[in-house]
């Protein structure tokens, strides 16, 4: 192993310390708990390591090895080569938190640009430079709502992913936040506004709306919902898929106070679900309660423009127990990928991406809806995911599809017993018309077995 240069000059260094052996440096560890060695294999050479990993990798299939229509908030998107080219620059990826701004101007400026772009697409005043993922962003938003309003209830639609609910419940335990769920409309797939009206009260710190929601459906009664939330003196939290924001209004335009979301789709690989990118943006008035790192502009001693971390008194390394969050290590490199990706898209590319995702969603849904034995479960307008109801168990269907080198969608009845035989299907700009045709004809074929 050659990552340890001083192995060869050990005696010389020990001599400086007037010590005989390395063990003398470990005399402070009680003998009773000392071990001689670890029961792990001997180290492998780089060449052998690569060989071993090739074998392991061969047991996986990537989205390019078969045709996949999985969604659930995570889908393959096309990533231009420029993203990897920039994020592979080791000045970026081998750096850490920019505590020393004078040696970190590059990363700081890139994060400032990331914040600016996220604020622009979400219609918020400010954004932080990342939380772990979309789910922890939602949890942090709930905590932030209770800090701001001093109220203790947080309302969520019942049709968000089960993982979101479980994680939120864990984060809610500390401050003792009560989570209330509102139901969805069985026909449209949108949230039930009457139910929201019934459940919102004086103790409601915040209301969460997902747009598009977990079923892929756009919530378009946004003005009505916003009014209900604001009339109750609550904070309006909106969860987004950033890809949709090229064609939809920004949440800021329809009243959101805090916008959160999973930002992986912005230039980051699926990576089996991690790493990810927690988007978090809010209005100016709530800035001081925001979790996470924020970069600001200032000047250096010559009056030249410079960047640095700011509002650090919200953060754990300064404020310790009184910090707005315990986050330290975040998802900086994923935010860098996002800012490179968005600049590559530009305003026009962003719109086109969003439109293609919308149109592909419509196209595929229409095609499947036309097959006998399948129909769209909800009639609300959807983005690039949608729920299809078939006549057999989706798990069974997926096994048959897999034999034809196709990965079907997520089976929903484990989480929503009322959605029997329903499957959540996702597409994006990576699919072609031929892919759709193949999926539809195979669906037809395997459901007739």
């Amino acid at each position, binding site marked *: 192993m050659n990552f340890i240069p001083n192995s060869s000059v050990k005696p010389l260094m020990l001599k400086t310390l007037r010590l005989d052996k390395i063990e003398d440096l470990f005399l402070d560890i009680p003998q009773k708990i000392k071990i001689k060695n670890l029961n*792990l294999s001997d180290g492998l050479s780089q060449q052998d390591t690569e060989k071993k990993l090739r074998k392991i990798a061969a047991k*996986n299939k990537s989205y390019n090895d078969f045709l996949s229509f999985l969604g659930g908030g995570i889908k393959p998107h096309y990533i231009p080569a420029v993203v990897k080219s920039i994020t592979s620059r080791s000045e970026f990826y081998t750096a850490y938190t920019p*505590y020393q701004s004078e040696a970190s101007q590059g990363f700081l400026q890139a994060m400032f640009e990331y914040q600016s772009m996220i604020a622009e697409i979400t219609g918020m005043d400010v954004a932080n430079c990342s939380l772990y993922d979309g789910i922890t962003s939602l949890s942090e938003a709930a905590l932030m709502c209770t800090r701001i309003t001093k109220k203790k209830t947080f309302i969520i639609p019942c049709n968000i992913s089960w993982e979101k609910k479980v994680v939120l419940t864990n984060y809610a335990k500390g401050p003792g936040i009560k989570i209330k769920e509102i139901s969805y409309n069985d026909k449209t797939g949108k949230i039930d506004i009457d139910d929201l009206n019934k459940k919102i009260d004086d103790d409601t710190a915040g209301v969460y709306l997902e747009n598009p929601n977990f079923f892929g459906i756009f919530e*378009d009664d946004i003005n009505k919902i916003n009014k209900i939330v604001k009339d109750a003196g609550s904070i309006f939290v909106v969860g987004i898929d950033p890809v949709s924001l090229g064609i939809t209004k920004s949440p800021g335009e329809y009243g959101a106070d805090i916008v959160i979301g999973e930002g992986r789709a912005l230039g980051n690989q699926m990576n089996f679900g991690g790493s990810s990118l927690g988007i978090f943006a809010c209005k100016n008035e709530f800035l001081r309660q925001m979790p996470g790192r924020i970069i600001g502009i200032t000047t250096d001693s010559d009056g030249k423009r410079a960047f640095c971390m700011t509002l650090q008194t919200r953060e754990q390394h300064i404020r310790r127990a009184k910090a707005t969050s315990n986050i330290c290590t975040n998802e900086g490199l994923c935010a860098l990928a996002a800012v490179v990706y968005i600049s590559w898209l530009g305003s026009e590319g962003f719109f086109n991406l969003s439109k293609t995702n919308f149109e592909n969603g419509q196209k595929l849904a229409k095609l499947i809806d036309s097959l006998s034995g399948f129909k769209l479960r909800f009639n609300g307008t959807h983005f690039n995911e949608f729920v299809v109801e078939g006549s057999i168990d989706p798990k069974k269907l997926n096994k048959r599809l897999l034999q034809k080198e196709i990965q079907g969608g997520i089976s929903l009845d484990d989480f929503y017993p009322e959605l029997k035989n329903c499957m959540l299907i996702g597409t994006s700009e990576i699919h072609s018309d031929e892919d759709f045709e193949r999926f539809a004809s195979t669906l037809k074929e395997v459901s007739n077995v």
Partner: protein
Amino acid sequence: MYKSATYDEPLLNELVISKKEKKNLYTKLPDSLQRKKNIDIPDLDETQIVRHFHRLSQMNYGIDSGIYPLGSCTMKYNPKICEEIASWERFTGTHPCQDISTIQGNLQIMFELERMLCEITGMDYFSLQPAAGAHGEFLGMMLTRAYHEDRNEGFRDEVILPDTSHGTNPASVTVAGYKLIEIPSNKDGTVDLDVLKNTLSEKTACFMLTNPNTLGIFESDILKISKMVHDAGALLYYDGANINAIMGKARPGDMGFDIVHLNLHKTFATPHGGGGPGGGPVGVKIKLEKFLPIPRIGKTKEGKYIFDYDAPESIGKIRAYYGNFSVLLKAYIYILMMGGNGLREASEIAVLNSNYMKKKILDSNLYEMPFKELRKHEFVLSCEKLKQEKGIRAMDIAKRLLDYGFHPPTIYFPLIVKEALMIEPPETESKEDLDRYVDALIKIAKENPEIVKASPNNTSVKRVDEVNASKNLVLTWKKV
């Protein structure tokens, strides 16, 4: 030595662009949701974008630029082979909900990594879910609560930690809803057993400890501490930020710790990414196993890897899916290459580097080091004497180090050392670099204080006015 490039690089939105016509944004969306205004992002050419970010990268210091001895951050070299393999499409292009037969490689890696981490720490089981160290601490607090509630001792609502603890510790404790009790260290800079004894009670849920602690001192009384904590019915939590000091020498599990978090981006050489992503796996003793997050990764008799969701007493989840897989993969590769002996060698040389540097600096009599002499992988100097005599502060020394082409250490932490310089020279640094760093510290202490206070001068910007940044907030380019 590193020398930063200097560009007056405009913001992306300030780059000169050829104006494009505004697009008609009409789609078949419901009108209430239809975007009417073009997104205000510049339309640039790829060349412009590449040059922009390329220049930015040249104004940024990473481990590949030189020594980066941030205390408690373990900034070790990140092997290129790990990056290379982790970028293979068979890993990056996998969806977390794919059929189990198509992700056997990923599951094998996670399964084996869990076993490796158990061996390194002496714990029984691991969860790979946490995205960072602080996230692992949060999970640790969730597990602590589940454990006590299960024993009908949910009334335990206090968590104790020493005043030398990392900032994330107290923050995680309060985020999880526990009352925080911070106890002062003794004159050796370690846990004061009498104070701990008097603080432990039937209200104590957990004692959080970093060992070696943030001063780089090994808590030699750890077995006594462990007994006291357990006798009080509480759990003992290990902040693994400093485990690079003791791999293959001693294990937190054998010391009596019940919960352990590791930082893969520190000890296991995965890159820090300018802030993240990281990995903060959590290991537990068997008595806490049933509370670990779902899904657990299992292996059938036939050798097939599976997700196991059947854990009725699990705390559930703390993030989406299974953890930062790309980071787990790099740590797995690193451990494979190092092997057990390589990891022990890493710890031994990290400790040797740290004591070597410490000795050479202290021999100069220019800096002081309060508390015990023998240190592990890091040590904390005080610049108080320089401040009194020459008016130079730790901040000034940090900035002046940049002029010498080095990344400064962590400063002003831990809080019990005045004008602290917290230095961690990992095993991947050469003696020559350590010597150069020591020389720079000595030279700076002898320099004209005015020069030191006016530094840095060799960086892309001079000393940055952080106070102004928070007084006059400019957080997006709209405000520029």
